């Protein structure tokens, strides 16, 4: 009993200790080099700046998160759909996969301003940019899952006389689920970055609803570096929430049967 509780305590304590250590080093570096505030603020100055700006930052975070969610959901659905098309036959893959790769390789810094030109600025452009950044991991992983079904399982289905649809729905899709969820996790971790990058190009601030990316530009222009860092940490937090949600989804969907989830029973 005692061993177990101290084990639990360590899970919290250890990262806390290293975190404090890191902040201390940060403060020491600043003092040792005597950096001015606009170059490197103290950790508590960052916290104070974040607190002062909390209203702005919360609104900006909500805006960015909305765009990130929309882009992510788009990537999740379209990515899954594209994967199903690609997985349906080898010739489909030969025909379409190279083009998927081209879209993936196309530099986002070229694509983003084009989206703004075509779709005008606003949340839809930011979402489109988020989608462009996040769809490929979903496609790649889901396709892999759909085509990597165990040969014997396919044979099992064939020997029982399963139709193509039965094989797809009863075998390939459940088999691909862990792969798809892995793709979603990767895409989720890119979603915030995608949204903020999108905002650098397409963030509109009609009435002060620019997202976190927009805030970064504004703060930088006013040399408010503490606020810039605070914005970064807020973005970080949003990212954790995002990825955490998708990971939880992953966990709950797979926990009963997938070997990737640690077993606490037998």
């Amino acid at each position, binding site marked *: 009993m005692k061993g177990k509780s101290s084990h639990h305590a360590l899970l919290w304590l250890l990262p806390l200790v290293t975190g404090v250590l890191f902040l201390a080093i940060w403060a020491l570096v600043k003092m040792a080099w005597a950096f001015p505030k606009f170059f490197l603020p103290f950790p508590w100055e960052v916290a104070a700046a974040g607190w002062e700006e909390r209203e702005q930052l919360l609104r900006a975070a909500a805006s960015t998160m909305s765009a990130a969610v929309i882009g992510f959901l788009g990537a999740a659905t379209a990515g899954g759909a594209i994967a199903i098309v690609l997985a349906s036959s080898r010739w489909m893959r030969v025909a379409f996969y190279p083009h998927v790769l081209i879209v993936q390789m196309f530099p986002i810094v070229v694509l983003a301003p084009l989206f703004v030109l075509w779709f005008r600025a606003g949340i839809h452009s930011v979402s489109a940019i988020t989608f462009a950044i996040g769809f490929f991991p979903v496609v790649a992983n889901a396709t892999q899952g759909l085509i990597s079904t165990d040969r*014997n399982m396919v044979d*099992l289905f*064939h020997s*029982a*006389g399963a139709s193509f649809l039965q094989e797809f729905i*009863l075998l390939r899709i459940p088999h691909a689920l862990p792969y798809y969820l892995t793709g979603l996790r990767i895409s989720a971790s890119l979603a915030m970055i995608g949204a903020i990058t999108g905002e650098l190009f397409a963030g509109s601030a009609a009435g002060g609803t620019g997202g976190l990316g927009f805030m970064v530009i504004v703060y930088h222009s006013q040399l408010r570096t503490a606020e810039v860092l605070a914005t970064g940490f807020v973005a970080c937090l949003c990212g954790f929430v995002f990825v955490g949600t998708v990971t939880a989804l992953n966990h709950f969907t797979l926990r009963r*049967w997938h070997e990737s989830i640690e077993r606490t029973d037998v």
Partner: protein
Amino acid sequence: MHGRNGRMGQPSDAWNFRQGAVARLRARGLSRCVRSLRMPAPPSSVVFHEVSKRFDYGPLVLERITLEVTPGAFVSFVGPSGCGKSTLLRMTCALSPVSAGRLDVDGRAPARKGNQLAFIFQEATLLPWLTVRGNIELPLRIRGMAPRERHAISEEMLRLVRLERVAARHPRQLSGGMKMRVSVARALAQSPRLLLLDEPFGALDEMTRHHLNEELADMHRQRGWTALFVTHSVAEAVFLSDRIIVMSANPGRIHADIPISFSGDRTLETRDTDEFHHTVAEVSRILRSVDSSA
């Protein structure tokens, strides 16, 4: 060539016994019990006539295999790697096409849909997202059986392989032996007339393997399906079979066709008998001669 009971082309004793039981039950107006007996249909006949197999313009994998399998017989195939044993099985259930010759299952060409056979693979090949029961019911679901009927059958199968208590578990919670038993249950749930087994027990430890051999022999006695069994273990082949086909490789041909019979039922004790050891030695010798001649 002799069937288990020395009669060719005739149903086994097991089947005959059940026919009689059905007649008696029907006479007493208890046809409901007939359904619950799950009357097996008569076992399949399998005939290979000059069957050859070539993959995609490659070399011959099987050359002019001619073989007639008595309904209800348990036939094992042994031989070196690459002799096409697995391919024979796959052709029998239309997973692989025949390149030349004629292969008949119950007088008809092999088919994927509407067949009455079941395949047991090298690995248990259980779907990890389904429970044990779900896995057993899977082929029935594919073949379009209603849920209630499926449930009744899976109940019976779980009892048969003694896995009632883990019906709701998922495959990752099972041991290797248990998974194999589920795989067997899944196959038998389909009431097959023909059972195809491709080295099903290869990955298991010896004790488990012997136990499962015994259970399989027992089930065969009760249900009487025809079995085509591929294995690397001569002892296992000898234990289970009425007939052992020894094959040679490059290309695959039938090297020897050995009838096997023992006095009495095959149990764990059978493995200790001199008769058993002698037979195993004989077959092994024949198998070795294949290796050296290849």
